[in-house]
C-alpha cells in the first residue's frame, strides 16, 4: 500500500513544478485583464481605438485620463458623489447595526427569533424587486435623485450583514467585563460606549469596509435613482462615458474610467485584506 502514497523524489519534484506552473497560469489569467485595461488606458486615444489592437502602448499618453477627469460634470463631482453616498451609507449602517448587535447579543429580548428574522428580511427579499415602491415613496418626500436616498438603499443592502457581524462581535466579549461595570453602577449605554465599543472596533472596521466597497460598486439603484447627470455615481458615469458621442465608444477613456473606479477597491483590498477576507467568511457562511 505504501507504494501508492510514497512517490519517488523526481516525481514529487515534477508535481511541485506542475502546481507552480498552474499557479502562475492562474495569476496571469486573473491579473491579465486588469493589466491590459491599464495598458489601454495609457495609450493615446487613437491607438486605444485602433483595430487590430496592440497589447502594449506604442507611446504613452495621459490624454484618456484627462478626458475622464473633464468628462461632463467632471470626475471630481462623480467621485465626490460616490464618496458621499458611501459615507452616508456607512454612518447609517453603524448607527443602526452597532446598537442592534448590542441589543441582540446582550439582552434577553421578548420575541428575539422574530426580531432576528425581521432584521434579516433584506437578505431574503431581493432589493431589485422593491426599488419601484421605494422610488415612488422617495419622490413624494424629495429623496428621489438625492444622495441620501441612494445611501438609504445601500444601507438596507448592507444592514443584515452588519447586524450579524456586530452581534457576533458583542457576543464574543466575556460576561465578566460587563458585570464588573454594571456592579459599579454604570448604565447599559455607558457600558456600550466606554467598555464595549473599543472591543468591537474590528467589527466596526469590517462593516465600514464592506459598506464602502458595496456602495461604491452598486449599480441598479444608482441607475434608477440618479437621473440627473451631475448627481451620477462613478459606475453610472462609466456607462455614460461608454455611450460616448454619436454612438462611437471612446475606448481609451472608458479604460481610464475603469482603472479609476477599481483603484479605491484594490487599494482597500491590498491594505486591509485580512479584515476583508475574514469579514467575508464570517458573513457569508456562518
Amino acid at each position, binding site marked *: 500500500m505504501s507504494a501508492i502514497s510514497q512517490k519517488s523524489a523526481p516525481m514529487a519534484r515534477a508535481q511541485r513544478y506542475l502546481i507552480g506552473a498552474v499557479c502562475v497560469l492562474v495569476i496571469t489569467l486573473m491579473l491579465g485583464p486588469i493589466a*491590459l485595461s491599464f495598458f489601454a488606458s495609457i495609450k493615446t486615444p487613437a491607438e486605444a481605438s485602433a483595430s487590430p489592437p496592440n497589447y502594449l502602448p506604442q507611446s504613452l499618453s495621459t490624454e484618456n485620463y484627462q478626458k475622464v477627469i473633464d468628462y461632463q460634470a467632471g470626475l471630481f463631482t462623480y467621485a465626490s458623489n460616490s464618496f458621499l453616498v458611501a459615507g452616508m451609507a456607512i454612518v447609517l449602517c453603524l448607527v443602526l447595526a452597532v446598537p442592534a448587535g448590542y441589543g441582540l447579543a446582550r439582552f434577553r429580548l421578548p420575541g428575539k427569533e422574530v426580531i432576528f428574522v425581521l*432584521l434579516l428580511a433584506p437578505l431574503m427579499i431581493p432589493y431589485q424587486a422593491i426599488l419601484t*415602491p421605494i422610488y*415612488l415613496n422617495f419622490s413624494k418626500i424629495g429623496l428621489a435623485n438625492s444622495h441620501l436616498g441612494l445611501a438609504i438603499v445601500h444601507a438596507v443592502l448592507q444592514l443584515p450583514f452588519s447586524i450579524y457581524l456586530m452581534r457576533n462581535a458583542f457576543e464574543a466579549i466575556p460576561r465578566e467585563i460587563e458585570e464588573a461595570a454594571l456592579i459599579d453602577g454604570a448604565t447599559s449605554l455607558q457600558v456600550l460606549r466606554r467598555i464595549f465599543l473599543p472591543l468591537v472596533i474590528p467589527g466596526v472596521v469590517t462593516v465600514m469596509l464592506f459598506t464602502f466597497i458595496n456602495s461604491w460598486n452598486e449599480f441598479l439603484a444608482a441607475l434608477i435613482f440618479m437621473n440627473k447627470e451631475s448627481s451620477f455615481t462613478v459606475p453610472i458615469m462609466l456607462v455614460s462615458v461608454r455611450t460616448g458621442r454619436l454612438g462611437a465608444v471612446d475606448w481609451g477613456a472608458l479604460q481610464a474610467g*475603469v482603472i479609476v473606479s477599481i483603484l479605491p477597491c484594490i487599494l482597500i483590498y491590498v491594505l486591509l485584506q485580512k479584515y476583508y477576507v475574514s469579514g467575508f467568511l464570517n458573513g*457569508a457562511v456562518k
Partner: protein
Amino acid sequence: MASIRNRHLGLIYVAPALIFVIAFVLYPLGQLVYLSLTDTSLLGGGEWVGLENYEKAFADKSFWRALWFTVKYTVVITPILMGLGFALALLTSNNSPLRLFTRATIFLPVVIGLGTSSLLWYWLLDQQVGLFNKILLDLHLVEEMPVWFTKADPALAAVIISVTWKVIGFGMILFVAAIQSINSEVLEAAIIDGANYWQRVWKIIIPLSMRTLLLATLISAIGSMLAFDQFYIMTGGNPRGQTFTSVYWIYQNSFISFKLGYGAALSIILTAIILFFSAIQVFLSNRSGTE
C-alpha cells in the same frame, strides 16, 4: 443579572434597525403587492385592476423568455463557479507563499464592481478593438475570430466568461476556509491507510465541505437569478431581446416603458421564486450557527 437586564431596554437598542427595515423593506414590499394590483404608471394612473397584471404576466411570452434565460444562465454558470472555485481552493489551500499570492489574486476581482468589470470585458471581447480574440488567435486556440454579441448563445458565453473571472474568488475563499478547517488528523490517518490524494479529496474533503458547498451554491444561484448589471452593460438585452434577464425585463417595463403596476406584478413573481431559495439558505446558515 436578570433583574438589571430590563427586557425592554434591549428593545430600545434594536428598535432603530427594526424601524428602518420595516420602513424601507417590509412596507415597500406591501406597497409592491398593492401596486401589482393597479395600473400605476410613472406618468399617472393607479386604478385598481385586480389580478389583471398577473394574468397578463402569465401570458407574456417575453417575461417567460426572460425568466427562462435567467434560469439557463444560472444553471450554466453555477456549476462552473462552484466546480472551478473548488478546484482553485484545492490548488491554493496550502499556505505556501506562491499559493497565498495565487489565492489573493483570484479573490482580487471580487472587490471590483460588477458594472466596472462588465465594462472591462465589454472592451476585451469587442470585435474591433478587444484583445481577447487577438489572444485566442495568437495562441492558436481558435482558427477564426469568434463573434460574441450577435447571437444569444455566444453572448451568454461571453457574459459567463466575464462573470466567472469576476466572482470565482467568492466560492474559492469559502472552500479554502472549509478545507482548512478539516481536522488534519483525519487526513493523516487516511494517508497512513494508503489513500492517495484524489481518494482523500473524494472521500474526506468533499463530504466534510458539503455544507459550505451547498450554502455557496445557494448564495451563488440566488445572485445569478437576480443578474442585471452584466447583461445591461454587455448585451443590452440583445440580440433581438434574447438576453433579457428577469430583473432586466422588470427594469425595462417599470422604468423604460413606465408600466410600474405591471413591473410590480413581475417583481412579486420573482420575489416568490427567490424567497423560496433564500429561506433555505437562511435555514441552513442558522442551523450551522447552533451546531
